[in-house]
């Protein structure tokens, strides 16, 4: 049973990707398809980010260590969907036309912070293997705390791009804050816990 869990998580995590592929090739994206893809991949990045951050609180709540074994897979899917999101914007929307893209990154705070979040994901994705965990030892743990900053950046990215204050971006922001607050508590009680 245990050994099927991780592959199941992997397979389940590919479903949003398959859904968007289906929608693209069967023309199910409505009048503004590029925006749909951008929003879809962006939202799934945030969902996977929340899922990744939920694993150690879940372990604590349920006393089951199996949760943290999904963290790597889920975390890598954060990077996967974030990269699709970025590629949609840079490639599909702006056709690698760098001038307006650079303008956006510099002038628009939500793009700046979103891009920063993606950059910060890179070292985490690179050092995700077991080998790297061993190699970096304590530094690995420190490095991977970057995910907290990434989560805040990601939710701010969503809030700042919304036209007026809307419900959904705030929900993600609150979930992320709660998940991060959980860690502060844990740390106070138990110093050894990452």
């Amino acid at each position, binding site marked *: 049973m245990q050994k099927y869990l991780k592959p199941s998580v992997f397979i389940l995590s590919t479903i949003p990707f398959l859904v968007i592929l289906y929608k693209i090739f069967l023309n199910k*994206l409505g*009048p*503004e398809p590029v*925006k749909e893809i951008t929003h879809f991949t962006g939202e799934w990045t945030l969902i996977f980010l929340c899922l990744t951050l939920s694993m150690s609180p879940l372990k604590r709540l349920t006393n089951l260590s199996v949760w943290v074994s999904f963290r790597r897979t889920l975390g890598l899917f954060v990077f996967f969907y974030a990269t699709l999101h970025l590629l949609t914007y840079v490639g599909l929307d702006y056709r690698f036309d760098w001038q*307006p893209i650079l303008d*956006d990154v510099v002038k*628009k705070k939500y793009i700046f912070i979103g891009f920063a979040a993606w950059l910060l994901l890179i070292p985490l994705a690179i050092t995700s293997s077991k080998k790297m965990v061993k190699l970096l030892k304590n530094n690995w743990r420190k490095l991977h705390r970057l995910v907290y900053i990434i989560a805040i950046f990601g939710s701010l990215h969503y809030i700042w791009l919304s036209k007026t204050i809307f419900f959904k971006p705030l929900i993600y922001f609150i979930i992320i804050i709660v998940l991060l607050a959980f860690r502060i508590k844990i740390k106070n009680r138990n110093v050894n816990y990452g």
Partner: protein
Amino acid sequence: MIKFKNSEITPENIYKNRRSFIKSIGLGAGSLAISTIPFVNKSLASGGDKLTSYKDITTYNNYYEFGTSKSDPYRNSKTFKTTPWEISIEGEVEKPIKLSMEEISEMFVSEERIYRLRCVEGWSMVIPWMGFSLSELLSKVNPTNKAKFVEFESVYDPEQMKGQRYPVLNWPYNEGLRIDEAMHPLTTVVTGLYGKKLPNQNGAPLRIFIPWKYGFKSAKAIVKIKFVQKMPTSSWMWASPREYGFYSNVNPNVNHPRWSQATERIIGEGVWAPRVKTLMFNGYGDEVASLYTGMDLKKYF
């Protein structure tokens, strides 16, 4: 000139065929005689832009009174009541008047006007509106010499418009124009589209349309038109003065803080279509640029 009646319904395919027939007659005087459209965009006349589908025009709307998502207006406006409807023209005028929709359709002849719609969010449509110049309606009242601006107020009815139950914007929706902008022949009172009665989600029974400004300037479901002395503060200016100015002319050189305005996506062109360059004044510069002579359009955005 054909008088447009609400009962007159032209299916989209026939509508398009009729248009291609008109085009096929040729570029000579014949087409001029048939065309009652005074201000068709030049690129349209030469066949550059194609009409956005009726489906996209009527299912992809920004109309926060009915909800903030693009599909909300179509879904939530189906039972919206537009009869009876009355429009009050008041403020700095000699004789304020109230007109019912019936009176308005008696008094003014709606004609087909194909205009490009550019949304501030960076997308655009080409819409065959039915309507007449706002100046015709405004000429029914004599503004006093104090009148400098025209304010438009949309209907407030949270019972029917569920978006108004939330403070997304300060309701009722409010917009404004300078008098010379309001009197410009391109500024249109819209009563229909695609030869049909104006659908609820597009601002029925009556809205304005200003083709050289971003879409949000074109207020929907109007109940009050008021001549005023001071520049009105529109709903979007209230919401975010840094992002939305009073003029809001389509201008590829002035960026919105969250969207580049240099390019736009054409609705209905599909997932692989590239963006196209946005034109100054949405391509209506020849007609309207003179309204802004000597003005710093970066400052008065």
